[in-house]
């Protein structure tokens, strides 16, 4: 459903994404892991058609996002990591506007808006300007907006940031049901427990390249990690073992 072919992104001479190829089949929940600055967000933004790749291509359901953007994007729901929305629209107006961008209107949309606001417990806020929403509420609104047109693919950058435990649990359930019904989810996350618990397959990205990909069990096998947790595997693959030295830096607490 999502196919990346030799995807590359350069910022001047800096290689942010380096020749990535990846296939996420229909009905899969795929996780992208990696340290900060590894190129995950850049990759996801290229898939969503926000950034133009310097090389390679992105196919959504067989259509190139940059050659046939209108067809490809019709299948997509994108959830960014930072919830920037129009402050002077109300929650309901924002959802109606997004539905309009996908060519949808009328009673069906109104019902869908009511349904999504209900699910995310925003019904009592629907006629309030977004500027009054908290960070978490904005995030919930954006998630609702990504679902409003019933997409086939959801691309989501750091889905749990800003969500309370109840909303985080709800989102996990929504993603699981979405995938069970044949939808496809590609998400980037730093929360390794979330990735381990939810994702069918994961890819670990570092310095713009995929350094490992597969199910968590396959990764353990490939890297002879025994029954190590995904966190330990992640640290091993990304050289993050140095992070343990942090304990010495933060050791001031013993004074």
């Amino acid at each position, binding site marked *: 459903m999502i196919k990346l072919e030799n995807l590359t992104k350069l910022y001047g001479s800096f290689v942010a994404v380096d020749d990535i190829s990846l296939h996420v089949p229909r009905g899969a929940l795929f996780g992208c892991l990696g340290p900060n600055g590894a190129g995950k967000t850049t990759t996801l*933004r290229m898939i*969503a*058609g*926000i*950034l*133009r790749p310097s090389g390679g291509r992105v196919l959504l359901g067989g259509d190139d996002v940059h050659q046939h*953007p*209108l*067809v490809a*994007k*019709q299948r*997509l729901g*994108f959830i*960014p990591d930072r919830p*920037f*929305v*129009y402050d*002077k*629209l*109300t929650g309901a*107006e924002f959802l*109606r*506007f*997004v*539905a*309009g*961008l*996908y*060519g*949808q*209107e009328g009673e069906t949309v109104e019902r869908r808006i009511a349904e999504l606001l209900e699910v995310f417990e925003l019904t009592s806020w629907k*006629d*309030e*300007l977004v*500027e*009054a929403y908290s960070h978490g509420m904005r995030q919930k609104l954006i998630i609702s*907006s990504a679902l409003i047109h019933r997409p086939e693919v959801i691309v989501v950058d750091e889905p749990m940031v800003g969500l309370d435990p109840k909303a985080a649990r709800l989102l996990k359930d929504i993603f699981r049901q979405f995938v069970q019904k044949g939808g496809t989810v590609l998400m980037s996350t730093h929360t390794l427990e979330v990735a381990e618990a939810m994702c069918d397959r994961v890819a670990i990205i570092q310095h713009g390249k995929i350094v490992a990909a597969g199910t968590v069990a396959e990764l353990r096998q490939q890297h002879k990690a025994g029954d190590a947790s995904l966190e330990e595997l992640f640290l091993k693959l990304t050289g993050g073992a140095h992070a343990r030295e942090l304990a010495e830096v933060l050791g001031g607490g013993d004074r």
Partner: protein
Amino acid sequence: MKQPSLWHVLQPKWRTALQRLREERAGGGGKLVILTLVGAGFWAAVFGILYAMLRYFRGVEDLGPLLAGKLLGIALLSFVSILVLSNVITALSSFFLAKDLDLLVSAPVDWLRLYLAKLGETLLHSSWMVALMAVPIVAAYGVVYHAGPLFYGYALLTLIPLLVLPAVVGSAVTLILVNVFPARRTRDLLSIVALGAAAGVILLFRLIRPEQLARPEGFRNLLDFITLLRAPTSPFLPSEWASRAIMNYLREIVDPLPLILLWTTAGAFVVAGAALHRGLFASGYTKAQEGAERFVRGVFWRWTVGTLLRPLPVAKREFVLKDIKLFFRDTTQWSQLILLAVLVVVYLFNIQALPLHRGEPVGFFYVSLVSFLNLGLAGFVLASIAARFIFPSVSLEGRQMWLLRSSPLDLKALLWSKYWVGTVPLLVLALLLTSLTNLLLKVTPFMMAVSLIAMSALTLAIAALALGFGALYPQFETENAAQIPTSFGGLVFMMATITLLGAVIVSLWQAVYTYVRAVYEGRPVVVDAWMLFWFAVAAALCAAATVIPLRIGLRKMESFEF
């Protein structure tokens, strides 16, 4: 505990400014050259006009220095009024809404350092333009009075407290207001009050007809005129002290009192401002975190504009509705309409006040000429309006561009919506302005038709230029829409529009001149190939200025990366 220096507290600000400067330099010298040229041109024009006036004044016995002093007093008074208003608005951002406040307030920085740092920031942000404007004025006085190089240092010494005083007053007013209203409400309130006040000042200034001051024959006798000039506007106004200090120096009168008054008052005001800040800042800052608008139904627009736009595809319709709602819900945006209304009233008043309508009827030739030049002026007014409302529209989408780019919205539809949302009101205004002024001028039907058609074509082009340049020079990081038109891109847009207006008017004049001459000489009007050729040139210019900027803007938007 050792406190950080003021310089250290302001470090992020000046380092950011330095970095921006470096980036500008790295981006090529073109921008700097244009800015320097425009700035130098503006300075030269102000200097030239003032130099000629002051030279004339110097030649007038007794009255000369009085007139020069009065002129300086008026200029400084208007500077102080503008500064108080702009400081009130700037202080709201720097003291209560700035992004660095959470860090500074949570750090162990004492209240006095915070006050002085933020006062300095407010002063710099609100006063730089006025300070630059003062340079050619001071230079003209210095040159005409052969004051020598020391004068400029002395003038600087006089002007510094004149900048500090409005900054302290503006910050204090904001501090009190924020304690009464939540900061975001205060922002709304202030933008309306400030723009209303500015509009009132402009209107008042125009309606009292300052040009009469330049015509002493309008007064009953010379004594009345001199009495008016001699009387200080108010002995308690710092602008009056500054003007006296400068004029005394120029006339070689030794009198340190005005300078002492300026500096001691400024010092006392800073102390009083700091005391007020100590008492009220904490509660004001807490209040600034609160307050947002509550329930909005928004059905009005859906019923009116929504119904009207029913035949359009849903994406375009929703986009237009969204733009209209955002505009009318953002006080900083719609409140600019107050200034716009004043601009239009002053414009019509000027046409009405033209000496054409006094005494005996004026020749057809002059009426036609004025009506023609009116096209240029009206075009300029429209360009300023387009710079305010259409130019920022692409920039304002910046933070939400992730949504538009990840959705199947065609960027052409986005540009289309933005273009028409801006153009339709502009066109209505343009036609209203042109027909009203032409009615006031009592022009012939032919001239009326030419003006209306030309103005419609120009409006379409001006709106396209505003949108195109807005996309070419976007300001995605600016939170205040009112600041976008004063950016470099805004300047380039105004220059391009003035060039277009000039070219179209020159072409049209070639065509219309044949007509005017024929009527003037009592010959029958013949529409010949020459006339048609120049009409075609004007039309082609407008068409090119409409299509090319929109195409370039679209291409630029396609390349935006977020």
